[in-house]
């Protein structure tokens, strides 16, 4: 296991442990709720990076995986009395499989066409779920309070779910690292740089892209299941909130697309920034504007994001943080 020798591996383990232990040891629920949001952002950004940063395909609608994961989990737990663990696993696998099938179709589209199709997928799924009575239509699904009983009551269940979300966060980062260092990752990077050249060099681009798309759906779907289980309800507007998937793009670009650590740092910074803006009166209405300005500035002046910029002035850092 060469991965165990990478400094970044231990850094990821460390950060994950800090996320888990900090609120747990201080028994601080406010801190937990702040960190859960950061963790969700990191999960979304890190997995989105597999498409945008590694494969070079802009997915505007990545939130659809998160939302579907939430719906499937709450439906299995609420209507079919499944346990949480099996429900999120089934949700993750199903959404990933669905993404694979969908990917076979829409990944034949390149560039802007693909990007638009992903918006369309999210909007179409949202419209469908809003009209789908089995999942409560536009009312969504509410979990009965008894759903938490099996996990030792609501208070204990929320802690367990928090730790699971942190675990998914750590797994997302390790996945990014493992893919970055694999043959699969090398093929993806080749596709990102020049798909036609990659194909001529022997990279099975259609399969690789579809696998990347499917892989980038798995952990966000599980995270969606955990997150909405924690909330106790899921509605279409929240599950398929296109704005959140666009903010995830801003996070990826801010931290540095294509790097392992960039999206995490971007997600963390963006979450802080957003929190700050929301507390300043008069600015809270403008947070999408500021996200837009931020995105534009990054694209125009630092397309490699924060990590790209750091690696340029200090190349050695790339070896450690990748």
């Amino acid at each position, binding site marked *: 296991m060469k991965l165990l020798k990478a400094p970044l591996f231990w850094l990821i383990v460390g950060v994950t442990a800090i996320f888990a232990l900090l609120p747990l040891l201080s028994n601080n629920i406010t801190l937990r709720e702040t960190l859960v949001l950061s963790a969700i952002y990191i999960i979304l950004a890190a997995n989105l990076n597999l498409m*945008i940063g590694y494969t*070079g395909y*802009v997915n*505007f609608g990545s939130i659809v995986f998160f939302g579907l994961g939430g719906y499937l989990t709450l439906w299995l737990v609420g209507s079919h009395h499944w346990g949480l663990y099996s429900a999120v696993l089934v949700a993750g696998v199903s959404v990933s499989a669905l993404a694979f099938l969908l990917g076979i*179709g*829409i990944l*034949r*589209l390149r*560039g*802007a*066409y693909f*990007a*638009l*199709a992903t*918006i*369309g997928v999210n*909007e*179409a799924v949202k*419209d*469908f779920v*809003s*009209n789908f009575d089995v999942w409560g239509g536009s009312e969504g699904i509410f979990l009965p309070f008894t759903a938490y009983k099996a996990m030792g009551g609501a208070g204990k269940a929320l802690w367990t779910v928090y730790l699971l979300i942190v675990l998914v966060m750590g797994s997302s980062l390790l996945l990014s690292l493992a893919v970055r260092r694999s043959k699969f990752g090398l093929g993806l990077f080749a596709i990102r740089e020049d798909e036609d050249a990659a194909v001529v060099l022997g990279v099975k681009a259609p399969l690789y892209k579809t696998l990347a798309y499917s892989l980038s759906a798995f952990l966000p779907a599980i995270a969606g299941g955990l997150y909405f289980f924690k909330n106790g309800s899921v509605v279409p507007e929240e599950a398929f909130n296109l704005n959140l998937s*666009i903010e995830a*793009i801003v996070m990826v*670009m801010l931290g540095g697309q294509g790097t392992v650590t960039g999206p995490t740092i971007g997600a963390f910074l963006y979450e802080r920034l957003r929190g700050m803006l929301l507390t300043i009166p008069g600015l809270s*209405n*403008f*947070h*999408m*504007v*500021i*996200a*837009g*300005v931020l*995105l*534009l500035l990054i*694209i*125009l002046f630092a*397309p490699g994001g924060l990590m790209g910029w750091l690696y340029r002035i200090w190349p050695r850092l790339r070896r450690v943080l990748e």
Partner: protein
Amino acid sequence: MIEIVSSILDGLLIGLVYGLASIGLTLIFGVMDVVNLAHGAVISLGMFSLYFFFGAGLHPYLALIPVAIIGFLLGVLIYQIAVRRILDGPPLMTLLATFAVSMIIVGIGTALWSTSPYNVNFKVQTLNIFGYTVTSARLIAALAAVLVTFMLYYFLYRTTLGKAVRAVSNNREAAELMGIPSQQILAISFGIGTALAMLSGALIATLFPFTILSGSIYELKSFVASVLGGLGNPTGALFGGVILGLIEGSVAPFIAISWTNVIEFVIFVLILLFFPTGLLGGRK
């Protein structure tokens, strides 16, 4: 039966307005290979511009003139700020940059005007053509769309500047070698594309209530229409708009409105997958 024919007729008329919006999108793509994701936001701005000119006492159809001018200037501005620097970079970047512009416009619009619906109230007559009824506003909007399209064609095929736009669209390097200042032409093209989007938004505002978010629906329609006709091909975009309008008109009596978006999106993906250069053939 009369209801269905009226609905199809309505579809045809609104389809011409979709066509106008699509030409704006396809023109920018054709000239500089940029897919303008701020298109929908600009359409919304067109709606609000008309609303404010109308509020200031201008006749809505006269207001189209200042709306077009504002659109042109806005387009040049967007090009200079967000597009020019990264035009030769990876396509992913222009996509994200125009999207950022869209976030900014929609964000400001939401803060200023909220997301509740607005409408332009003016007297609308119902006309009776061969026994089928249409509203005068719809007819005029369609005629205005056709008129603007004719003006665009006149510009592209009969004026020196228009010919320069076509030359740059065809081969930028060759056009530069022949002394055509391509940066100016690109800025002008982006301006015209944006003006067309604003105009189509303004025309739609004379027909339906709207919010700052409405543009995104018409952005999707513009994409569907442009890919139907082949992205980069203005005639195709107009044709695509009409087809889309006709489809909407034909299905409207039978299904709930909330499903039209899903259907249009499915058409969009199917067309992209099976006719990647459109039904009329686009620019590669």
